[in-house]
């Protein structure tokens, strides 16, 4: 979507020029060094969060990470491969319930249960992906939507195993002795490690031959097939991996919130995941993380902003309307989401800067500057 237009447009150009100038001033040292510093800063902030914030905030950041992880899985399927799923909340639910049932009723250790939950989600993803081989675009969205709608009913129907509407308590995973960590910090770091590892793996995947094959399938399936891409295998595989990541996200979220019930994994969750992907930026690595932060913080920030001026105004009922407005606005203004917009600003800026430099050089030449031949 974002690739469709590379022409200069006013707002992006102006912003971009400022951005590019700022970057040029700040550009000290080689690219790899700048990247290393940026990642080190990011790592530092992520490490420092649970030592600074209150317990409930740390738990909130852990929740955002789980959403970012699930959205990353969805992005692999929808963003990179072009297969729309409105049902990834169901895979999160499968992961969460597998962990809850195995740990609570069968005494399996948390980490083993999470591994089993991920594998089970993978298998389910492949099963749902099978019809996807014949069903395209809008119809796949329809099937996955029906799946998302059905999942809570399934949980309710088999309530003797799942706990149904009243839910199921899961024993907590306690921090190891002598680590000095309290519960919320321990789960935060555990989640962080999982999320970082999966982000790195997915990044490597999409930059590899496999990633290029997925993008080829998205952009032109027939052409991809002609080029020797095994479309069937890739589609099934990516459906499975995408479901695995969502299931993993569901599984680790049980560590944070040791309680599951049928209402948690409804259609709204599936839609939220898609919204996160779109807001953050389709087919980008950091998009899901940025989208998850915005989706979680936007209502709180807006509440804080208006609270001073209109103390009676409650933001909560407006939350879905905000998201709806943001979504529709984004499709018009920045089809690549936030990340896409920044990329575009960067690209526009570089173009403007180069144009300016060339113009300057041309003026120098024509006015007989020091560089001009005698």
């Amino acid at each position, binding site marked *: *979507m974002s690739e*469709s237009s590379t022409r200069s447009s006013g707002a992006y150009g102006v912003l971009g020029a400022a951005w590019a100038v700022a970057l040029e001033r700040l550009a000290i040292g080689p690219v790899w060094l700048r990247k290393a510093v940026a990642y080190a800063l990011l790592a530092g902030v992520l490490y420092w969060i649970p030592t600074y914030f209150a317990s409930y905030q740390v738990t909130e950041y852990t929740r955002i990470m789980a959403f970012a992880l699930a959205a990353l899985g969805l992005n692999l399927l*929808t963003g990179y491969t*072009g297969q*729309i799923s*409105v049902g990834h909340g169901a895979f999160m639910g499968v992961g969460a319930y597998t962990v809850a049932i195995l740990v609570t009723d069968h005494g399996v250790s948390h980490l083993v249960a999470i591994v089993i939950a991920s594998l089970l989600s993978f298998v389910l993803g492949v099963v749902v992906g099978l*019809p996807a081989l*014949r*069903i395209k*675009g*809008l*119809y796949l*969205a*329809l*099937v996955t*939507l*029906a*799946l998302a*709608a*059905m999942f809570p*009913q*399934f949980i*309710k*129907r*088999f309530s003797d195993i799942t706990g149904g509407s009243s839910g199921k308590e899961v024993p907590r995973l306690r921090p190891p002795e002598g680590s000095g960590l309290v519960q919320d910090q321990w789960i935060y770091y555990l989640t962080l490690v999982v999320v970082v590892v999966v982000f790195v793996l997915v990044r490597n995947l999409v930059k590899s031959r496999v990633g290029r094959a997925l993008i080829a399938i998205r952009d032109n399936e027939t052409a991809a097939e002609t080029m020797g891409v095994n479309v069937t295998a890739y589609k099934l595989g990516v459906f499975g991996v995408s479901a695995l990541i969502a299931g993993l996200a569901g599984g680790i979220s049980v560590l944070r919130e040791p309680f599951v019930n049928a209402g948690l994994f409804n*259609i709204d969750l599936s*839609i939220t995941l*898609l*919204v996160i992907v*779109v807001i953050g930026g*389709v087919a980008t690595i950091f998009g899901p993380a940025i989208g998850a932060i915005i989706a979680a913080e936007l209502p709180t920030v807006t509440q804080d902003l208006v609270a001073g001026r209109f103390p009676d105004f409650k933001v909560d*009922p*407006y*939350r*879905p*309307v905000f*998201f*709806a*407005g943001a*979504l*529709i606005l984004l*499709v*018009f203004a920045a*089809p690549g989401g936030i990340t896409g917009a920044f990329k575009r600003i960067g690209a526009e800026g570089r173009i403007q800067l180069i144009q300016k430099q060339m113009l300057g050089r041309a003026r120098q030449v024509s006015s007989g500057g020091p560089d001009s031949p005698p």
Partner: protein
Amino acid sequence: MSEFLQFTFIGLGKGAVYATLALALVIIYRTTGLLNFAQGEMAMFCTYFVWFGHDRGLPLPAAVLVGMFGGFLMGALIERLLVRPVSKKAMGNPLPIVIITIGLFLGLNGLAPIVFGEQAKTFPVPFGDGSVSILGASIFTRTLGTLAVLAVSVAVLWAIFQKTKFGLGLRAVASNAESSALVGVPVGRMLLIGWGMSAAFGALAGTLSVEGGLDNTLMALPLIYAFAAATLGGFDSELGAVVGGLLVGVITELLARYGTIGAYSVGQDLKLLPAFLLILLVLVFRPSGLFGKGEVKRV
């Protein structure tokens, strides 16, 4: 036997409502080739228009007309302001359109309680709440009434699509907008009217489906059943939507009563399972549905 018949009748009553909403889905598909995920929420919102008209003292039939008119305007506006510019830019990529309809889904669902209040609205039951006894089982008068409305709607829609030049234009645009434009069909106007008509039907479906109270969850589940109905009947057939709707209604009711999975009965809780399986199986094995015409692929 009479119990079986009883559940069949209940299923017919629900199926008639699904069929009405499925008709709205079919109208959009026939004119624009899109699946509208916001159809249910649009119908819910239009039903509030009907409630508003009735609340201000209009008799129910007049209020329904008001709702349908409001629906038409709403559908036309949505097409003109949101769908058209996006589908122009999307160039065959379905994601932006899905996002727009999901945005509408969230927006209308969130807006309804803000605009009309959170409390569920009381609503007069169309066609009364009596029942007629047939073969030892009773069938509600509202089921009969809904079926009658449905029959008239299908006849009118069929006549419009198949027998008028205008209907031919609508179908032509859906099948190939570019060629239609070349032979002089006003493509934009056709798309606009398609969305308007479909939304107007939503008002009808919503009014018929109200049981007890009206709130923003009115269409959450019926939408899935309506999609199952339209898939089963074929997305490009009005008759298919009706037959599909009735079948889905009856199948889910009977399965809820008699179906089992291992030691578990399907029961009222798992009614979406047959709908989900229908969508899945029909799309995999017969994508054009019972009555639809297969799509011809050109290289």
